[in-house]
């Protein structure tokens, strides 16, 4: 877990002031913001790590870095509150504060050489995508990739370009997409992710499942995975908690004695079972 | 053990045995002789925890809000101020009268726990009454299902507006300085709001996710909080004095509340909140002959 922040001695809460160079509208309520700074990429996160995005005078909040380029970071942000509401109104060129990377990120060694089942729901695909793209860039380190993703409706599907083009070109990679409610020109599967997962029925042999989505979906996905006898150590998820400082000091994001912003947000189900169920 | 305590335990045991109520809320002995603290009894055999002594100052009305969705009834012991607190919640449509069983306790006035702690048990006789009991006008509960013991004589120990008139004589700079130094000490713990039966809004203007009040603790923010809360309970404040008793920093909050009550009495006629849940609220309705000095 890297804690080297470039401004040694200065407060870890001090952001780097960067700039939004591109805004992609994924869905009516999700936009992806490409952020860079004068010195290029503000920080280099591992897959699953978070960044604290601040837009003053409104406020700051923690978001997963969905993917990154050589000199920019991408944050996929759903409109859900005051800050995210304002973020959805800004234009390219807007100054934006960023600090990080925070959190432990996905345990890469656990995935090495294994087949991986990615199960995402709605905006939950954002953190999962950082791992998918990492696997695509280091394809040989990993086994078969099986991406299962669902959203409320076809227009709510995030990262359509990846889903229907880029990821299909990757070796040994299947992409299964479902929606809760289809519309007239939707040809794909219609149904909830947990049921869809059981239809696809990936084998637990030498496989790691990585899931992230709304709490209700996670509850049933975990049940389905158990039915397909995935062991708790084979299931990895990333939690959303209210985080304020991002450096394990403000005491807010604790689950038991663990701080989600430092010891998380990524936990295996085995670890979660040890922790009090208060998340 | 005084006979009120005995009677309290009897009634509680009966109510619970006959399953007329799911829970009985009363006082039990706390850590020290000057602590009588709320207790929630659900089993008849626990009724013997109940006590009635000179330190039962805690007002339960606000705690009833946690049980408004309980399917059964809740019994609660009410002094004069507690009963007005219950009326406050009924009138604000927060709890329903038929869901609570009220056991009235005529109140001789409670002793000041903070001073009792200083003086110690030997000098207990010298402990004065709580500030809020000095100006109490209704020691006998105004609403109850059953009354324990007979009513106590109503003797006004201190006119509740005396302090106000005295304070009004000061110059505006003195007043400003007084309130500045008082609210400089506020640590924004919101005990005064959380203990107040009149503060029963579902979501409060001072909750964090509404940016009306900055959480930075400074003089203007604290005064904004104190004053706005005084205005929000204007005409509904039952003057139970719990806010002043609960304040860890000893800020004289009741001065603000009594000032507003005095103004309401002068502008809209004699009125004491929480006496009759059906009556009109002075600031809740409009009369043609309402004064309008600023027209």
């Amino acid at each position: 877990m890297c804690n080297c922040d470039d401004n040694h001695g200065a407060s870890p809460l001090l952001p780097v002031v960067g700039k939004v160079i591109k805004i992609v509208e994924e869905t009516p309520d999700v936009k992806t913001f490409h952020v860079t700074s004068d010195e290029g990429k503000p920080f280099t996160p591992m897959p699953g790590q978070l960044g604290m995005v601040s837009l003053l005078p409104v406020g700051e909040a923690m978001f997963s870095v969905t993917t990154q380029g050589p000199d920019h970071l991408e944050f996929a942000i759903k409109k859900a509150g005051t800050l995210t509401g304002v973020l959805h109104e800004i234009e390219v060129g807007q100054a934006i504060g960023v600090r990080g990377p925070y959190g432990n990120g996905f345990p890469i060694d656990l995935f090495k050489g294994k087949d991986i089942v990615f199960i995402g729901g709605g905006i939950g695909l954002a953190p999962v995508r950082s791992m998918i793209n990492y696997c695509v860039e280091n394809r040989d380190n990993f086994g078969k990739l099986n991406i299962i993703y669902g959203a409320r409706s076809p227009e709510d599907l995030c990262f359509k370009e990846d889903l229907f083009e880029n990821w299909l070109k990757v070796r040994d990679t299947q992409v299964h997409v479902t929606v809760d409610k289809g519309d007239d020109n939707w040809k794909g599967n219609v149904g909830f992710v947990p049921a869809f997962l059981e239809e696809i029925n990936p084998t637990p042999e030498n496989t790691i499942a990585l899931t992230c989505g709304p709490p209700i979906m996670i509850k049933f996905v975990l049940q389905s995975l158990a039915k397909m006898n995935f062991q708790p150590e084979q299931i990895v998820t990333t939690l959303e908690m209210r985080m304020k400082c991002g450096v394990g000091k403000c005491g807010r994001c604790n689950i038991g004695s663990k701080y989600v912003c430092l010891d998380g947000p990524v936990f295996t189900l085995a670890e979660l079972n040890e922790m009090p169920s208060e998340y | 053990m005084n006979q009120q305590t005995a009677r309290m335990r009897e009634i509680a045991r009966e109510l619970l045995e006959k399953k007329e109520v799911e829970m009985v809320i009363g006082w039990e002995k706390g850590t020290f002789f000057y602590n009588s603290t709320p207790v929630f009894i659900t089993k008849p055999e626990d009724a013997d925890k109940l006590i009635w002594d000179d330190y039962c100052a805690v007002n339960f009305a606000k705690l009833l809000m946690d049980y408004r969705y309980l399917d059964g009834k809740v019994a609660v012991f009410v002094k004069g101020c507690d009963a007005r607190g219950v009326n406050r919640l009924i009138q604000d449509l927060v709890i329903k009268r038929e869901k609570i069983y009220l056991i009235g306790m005529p109140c001789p006035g409670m002793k000041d726990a903070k001073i009792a702690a200083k003086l110690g048990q030997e000098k207990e006789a010298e402990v004065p009454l709580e500030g809020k009991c000095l100006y109490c006008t209704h020691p006998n509960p105004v609403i109850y299902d059953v009354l324990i013991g007979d009513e106590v004589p109503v003797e006004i120990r201190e006119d509740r507006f005396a302090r106000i008139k005295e304070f009004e004589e000061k110059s505006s700079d003195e007043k400003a300085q007084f309130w500045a130094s008082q609210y400089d000490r506020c640590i924004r713990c919101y005990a005064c709001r959380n203990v107040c039966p009149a503060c029963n809004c579902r979501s409060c203007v001072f909750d964090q996710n509404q940016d009306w009040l900055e959480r930075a603790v400074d003089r203007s923010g604290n005064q904004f909080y104190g004053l706005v809360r005084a205005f929000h309970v204007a005409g509904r404040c039952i003057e139970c004095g719990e806010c002043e008793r609960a304040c860890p920093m000893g800020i004289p909050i009741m001065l603000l509340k009594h000032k507003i009550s005095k103004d309401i009495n002068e502008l809209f006629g004699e009125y004491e909140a929480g006496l009759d849940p059906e009556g009109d609220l002075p600031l809740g309705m409009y009369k043609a002959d309402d004064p309008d000095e600023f027209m």
Partner: protein
Amino acid sequence: MKSLSKANLPQFLEALNQSSQVYVPVVVDGTSRFIPWEQGAELVLDKNSNIPPKYLFFPQTEDLYGYKIYKQSGERTELPSAMEPFVVFGIRPCDVYSLEVLDDIFLTKGYEDVHYKQKREQGLLISLGCLEPEATCFCESWGLNPLNAPTADIMMLDGGDQFLLKAQTEAGQKVIDSQAGLLEEFQGEPPVGKPCTLTVETKGLMERLQPMFEHAVWDEISRKCINCGTCTYLCPTCYCFDVLNKTRGEEGIKYRCYDSCMYPEYTLMAGGHNPRPTKKERVRQRFLHKFQYIPERYEGQIGCVGCGRCIVKCPVNLDISRVITRLWEVEADV
């Protein structure tokens, strides 16, 4: 061991005040707190302060950095917070230890809180031992000694008409040497203090609590709590804070201020999900954080120093020492 006659105390403080700002416990409008020393200030030295000295190291509201509103360009400016040296006179051993607990939290685990660190480095502690702990004190139950704060710079005891001073660090020794004129040698026996009257069993409390997350006792304990912030804001070991900003026109200040796990919005997330929706979870979090999570996360560190401020000031007398007793009484697996 040196001795300082009580008559010379004002002189002693005035002399110290020349080189570094001295803070002393004084009653301000009925509540005692640590404020800058002034000639003629009337110190309260018979019992602990209502506001803990933690406020000097971790203030209730503290500015972090300034900023200009982010438009096409945005700016944030580090605020000059060069902290001059200061002296805390009359801090009690339990509060000195509470700073050690905060050191673990603010200065370890990969990140250092620079604001707290600066104040900690600049602060010199002259601790006054408690000859007669108050009825609400139970520091001894946590293994602390009311007469001695090992990490204080100077340890002081009340010897009747004089104070007995013992330097415990170089900085402390320097202060003693600089005030040699006012001090005399003391040969006699230091006074003996009384033990705490309030005691609770704290050994093994962490292990005891680990299986009790779903225990029904939490319902019973939390019922009378009114979820105000009094206990958390007066506690010397509570450290939770919120990070916010206040804007005035084009510029603003990013600041942090105390926050309390007792408030419902503490864990409320965008989209409405709240892992601690009711009073029970919040009251449970407060006690588990002190008795289990801090010891678990910081290898046996304690989360409560038994100062008793929350016992004194809780509007409904939810007494932390009785909670501990209750947690031992109930059978573990109900």
